[in-house]
C-alpha cells in the first residue's frame, strides 16, 4: 500500500458515497402507489429484464447494431477488468499466467472498444448531435483507464499514471454519465417491474413469428 493506493481507495470511497447519495436522492422521489390490478408478476418481469430481456436477440436495436454492441461489451469488459486489477496491484498479488493473459486480452479489447465507440460518436453526425462533452470525457477516461491497466501488466512503470487515472475516473464517475453503473440497475428494475406487472414481461410469445 502506497500513498497512491490510498488515494485510489479514497477515490473509491468518494465514488461509493456519492453514488449512494444519488441513489437515495432518486429514491426520495417516492414509490408510486399503484391501484390497478396487476396482470402479471412484477418480480418475474424484473428477472426477465435482467436475463433473457438483455439477450442480444431480445432486442432489435442490438441485432441491427451488432458491431456497436460488440464494441460496447468489449469496452465494459475492459474497464471492469481494469477495476478488478486495482486490488491486484495494491496487494502485489501474483496472477497465474492464463489469468494474466485474459486480463491483457480484456483490457486491450476495452481500449479498442472504447476507441471504436469514440470514433463512432465523432463521425456519425446524429450520434454527435446526441452527445454532450460528458460523453467524450467519460469515454476517454474509461478507455485510458483500460489502456494504462494493460500497460501495467507489461511494466510496473505504468503504475503511477494508471493509479492517477483510476482516481480521476472514480472521482468523475458519479458526476457524469458513468453514474449509469448505478442507474442501469435501478432503471432496468423499474422497466421490468412495469412490464412485469402488466403481463408483457416475460413475453409469452416469441420475438419473431
Amino acid at each position: 500500500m502506497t500513498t497512491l493506493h490510498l488515494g485510489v481507495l479514497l477515490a473509491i470511497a468518494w465514488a461509493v458515497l456519492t453514488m449512494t447519495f444519488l441513489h437515495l436522492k432518486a429514491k426520495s422521489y417516492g414509490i408510486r402507489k399503484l391501484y390497478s390490478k396487476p396482470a402479471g408478476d412484477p418480480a418475474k418481469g424484473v428477472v426477465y429484464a435482467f436475463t433473457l430481456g438483455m439477450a442480444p436477440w431480445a432486442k432489435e436495436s442490438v441485432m441491427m447494431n451488432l458491431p456497436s454492441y460488440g464494441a460496447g461489451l468489449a469496452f465494459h469488459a475492459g474497464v471492469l477488468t481494469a477495476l478488478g486489477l486495482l486490488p491486484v496491484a495494491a496487494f502485489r498479488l501474483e496472477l497465474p499466467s492464463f489469468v494474466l493473459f485474459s486480463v491483457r486480452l480484456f483490457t486491450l479489447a476495452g481500449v479498442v472498444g472504447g476507441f471504436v465507440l469514440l470514433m463512432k460518436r465523432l463521425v456519425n453526425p446524429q450520434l454527435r448531435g446526441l452527445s454532450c462533452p460528458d460523453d467524450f470525457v467519460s469515454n476517454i477516461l474509461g478507455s485510458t483507464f483500460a489502456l494504462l491497466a494493460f500497460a501495467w501488466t507489461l511494466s510496473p512503470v505504468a503504475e503511477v499514471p494508471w493509479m492517477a487515472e483510476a482516481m480521476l475516473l472514480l472521482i468523475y464517475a458519479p458526476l457524469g454519465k458513468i453514474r449509469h453503473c448505478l442507474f442501469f440497475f435501478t432503471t432496468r428494475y423499474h422497466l421490468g417491474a412495469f412490464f412485469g406487472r402488466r403481463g408483457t414481461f416475460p413475453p409469452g410469445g416469441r420475438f419473431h413469428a
Partner: protein
Amino acid sequence: MPELDELETRLVGLTETDIQRGLEVFRSKLKAAEASYLNSCVHCGLCADSCHYHRMDSTLENIPAHKLELISSVFKRNFTAMGRIAPGLVGAKPFNREMAKAWVDAVFGRCSLCGRCSVNCTIGIALPRIFRAARAALGTMGLVPTDLQATVDNSLKHGNNMAVTKDDWVETVQWIEEELQTETGDPGAKIPLDKQGAKVLFTVNPREPKFFPLSLLASAKVFWAAREDWTLASDNGWDLTNYGLFNCNDEQAGAITQNLVDAMERLGCQTLVIGECGHGYGAARWEGPEWLRKSYPFEVKSILELMDEYLRAGRIRLDSSKNPIPVTLHDPCNLVRHGGICEAQRRVLRQAVDSFIEMTPNREHNFCCGGGGGQLAMARYKQRRIRSGGMKAKQIRESGAKIVVAPCHNCIDQLMELNKEYKLNVQIKTVAEMVADALVLDA
C-alpha cells in the same frame, strides 16, 4: 405561413409564471422510477431505429434519446447538482420558450407514446413515462394542440368524445338491433340498454355509432351467440375512449374514467368490457385506477379476452373456412406492449380464419401504426403521422395478407389512411368482425 396558429400564439405569450408552473407540474409527475430514467441515458443511440419516426425519416429529432434529452437536460438544470454546477459539461439546459417549443415538437409532434424504444433501450428506460410527464407540463402551460384538447373537452362536456347526443346514440343502437335481428334471423336478438344487474357492461368507441356501426353489430352478434348477459349504458359510460391519456392531464382523464365507474355502479354490472380499442383499454384498465387513486370494485376486460373465453368454454363455435382470405394482425401498442394482451387475439384469430400470417416483428416488438398517442387528433402533424406509418405499411405489404385485423378503432383509422396513401389494397377489420363472420349458428 406568416400567420401564427393558436399554439404558436400561446408559445409567444408564455410568461415566466407559466414556465415555473410547467416545471412544477413536471416535477410532480416524477417518482423514483422516472428519477432513475432521467439519470440513465448513455447516449448510445441504439434506440434510434426502434422508433418508427426515425425509421422512416432518419433525423436527429426523431431519435427517441434526443426527445428524451430535451427533457432530461431541463431536469438536470433544475433538479440536479451537476446540472447547476456544470451545465455545459452534462448538457443541462434551462426551461424557456424555445425549450417549451422543442418539447411540444418532440413529445406531441414526434412521438406516439408507443414504448417500442423502451424495450429496445440499452439501459431499459421506459421513455414514454417521461414524455407523459412532459406533456402534462405543457398542458399546464396551455400548450396541448387545440384539436387534441377539443377531443378531451368533448368527453368532459358530452360524456363522449364525438359529442353524440343521447337520442342519437339510442336511436343508432336500436337501428343496429334491428340489423342484428335481420342478420341472425332471431327476432328476440337484443342489444340491451341499461339492463340492471347485467353481468357485462360493454363499451364502444363513439366512432362506431357515429360512422362505423358494423363493428358494434359484429360485437353484438358475438354476445348474442354466446348468450352473454350484457348491456350498454344509454347515458354517460358507453364511450370507452379517453384522450386524457394523451393530453396527460390526469384530472381530466380521471373525470372521463369516472363515467365508466359511475355506469358500472348505476347498472350494478360485474365486468367492464372494453371494446376493441387500444388506448381505451390502457386508460380504463391500467391508468384509470391511478388517475382516480382507487382500485375498482369490478373487473376490467377487453372483448378480446371475452371472445377467447367463449371459445375455450365452447360458448361459441367458429368455422374458419368462412374467412378464407389471408389475414394479418396488427398489435396496438396500448393493448399489447403496454396492455399485456398478447395471445388472446391470436388464439381467437387462429380459429376464426383459414390463414393467419404474423407480421414481423410482432407482439411487444410490434411497430406502432403511427396513429397512437393522440396523433390522429392532431392535424398539424399529419404529414409526419403518415410518413411514420410507412413502417406499418411495409409490414403489412410484406405479410402478403389481404385483410388486416386491428383490435383498435384508432389504429383502424390510421390503417385506412395508410391503405389509401401507400396503396396497400387491403381490407381492415376488427377481431369481432372476423369472429362474427365465422360463427357457426346452431339451429
